[in-house]
C-alpha cells in the first residue's frame, strides 16, 4: 500500500488545525462558552463540505480498486449507550485538555511538549476500555 498520500493529506490537515487555532485550549473554551462562532463555523462548514462530497461520490457510484463502493462504514446504534456514555466521557476530557486526538498530536509539534503525557494517558484510557469492554454496556 502506498502510504505517501495519507501522509500528505495528514500534513495539510495538521497545518490547517494549527493555522485555524483549532488546537488551542483557549479556542475550545471559547466554543464551550458560546463566545465565538469560529469553531462552530469550522465544524459546520466541514460537515457540509464532507456531506456534499459523500453525495457526489455516491451519485457517481465511485468504487475502489477492488470494486467496493467508496463509503463510510455504517455505525450500529444498538442500545446507544456507548455513544451517549463514551461521547460524554470524551467531552469531559476534550474540555480539560482543550484538544481532541488530532490536536493532541499537533500540540506536541506546536510547542506544548507536555501533551506527550496527555497522549500516553489517552493510550492508557483506550487500553483500559479494551480491557473492560466485555463488561461495559454498548
Amino acid at each position, binding site marked *: 500500500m502506498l502510504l505517501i498520500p495519507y501522509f500528505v*493529506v*495528514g500534513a495539510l490537515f495538521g497545518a490547517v488545525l494549527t493555522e485555524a487555532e483549532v488546537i488551542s485550549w483557549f479556542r475550545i473554551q471559547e466554543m464551550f462558552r458560546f463566545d465565538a462562532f469560529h469553531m462552530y463555523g469550522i465544524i459546520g462548514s*466541514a460537515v457540509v463540505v*464532507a456531506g456534499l462530497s459523500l453525495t457526489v461520490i455516491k451519485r457517481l457510484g*465511485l468504487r475502489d480498486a477492488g470494486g467496493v463502493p467508496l463509503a463510510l462504514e455504517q*455505525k450500529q446504534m444498538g442500545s446507544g449507550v456507548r455513544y451517549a456514555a463514551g461521547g460524554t466521557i470524551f467531552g469531559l476530557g476534550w*474540555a480539560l*485538555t482543550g484538544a481532541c486526538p488530532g490536536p493532541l498530536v499537533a500540540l506536541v*509539534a506546536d510547542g506544548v511538549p507536555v501533551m506527550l503525557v496527555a497522549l500516553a494517558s489517552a493510550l492508557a484510557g483506550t487500553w483500559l476500555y479494551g480491557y473492560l469492554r466485555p463488561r461495559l454496556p454498548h
Partner: protein
Amino acid sequence: MPHPLPWYVAGPLIGLVVPALLLIGNKPFGISSNFRHLCAAIAPCGVDFFRHDWKQTGLWNLTFLAGIFTGAWLASWLAPPSVHIAPAAMAALHGIGLHASGGLAPRELFSWTSLLTLRGFVSVVVGGFLVGFGTAYAGGCTSGHAIAGLADRQLPSLVAVLGFFAGGLTTTYVVLPWLLR
C-alpha cells in the same frame, strides 16, 4: 497569513479530508482509531480489542497521524499562531481564576512543572485519559463522529456529538471552576 485562518477556509479544507481519504484508498476519516492501533502495537496483552492486525488496518492512519505532526510543526514554524480569543471568553476565564493568557494552552495548566499541581495533573493526565477512554468507548472522536459521521447522516454519531457537548459543558461550567478556584 491572517490569524486565525478564517473558519470558511479552514472548515471546507477539513471537510475535504473525508472524500480525499475515500478516493485515496476507501479509508474512513477518524483519528482516535490510532489509539487502538498503538495499544495493539505496544501492549496488546491478550485483550480481544487489540488482537486485530494493526499493520493491515491501521498503518495508513498512523501515517496520516505522522502527517498531522509534521504539518503542524511546519505550519507553526512558518507562521506561528497567536491566539486572541473573544474578550467575553477571556473575561470568563479570568473570573474563574485562570490568569495565564497567550500561547496555545494556558501555561499554568500545561507545562512540565504544572503536572505536580492538582489542576495541571487533572488537565493533562485525567483529561488525556478521558479522551482515550471516551473515544474508544464511543467508537470515534471529533473527526470520526462530529465530521465524518454527521456528514454521512449517521444517527449514532449525532448521539455521540450530543455526548461530546454534554461532557464539554460539564467540564467548562462545573469542573474547571472547581479546579481553578
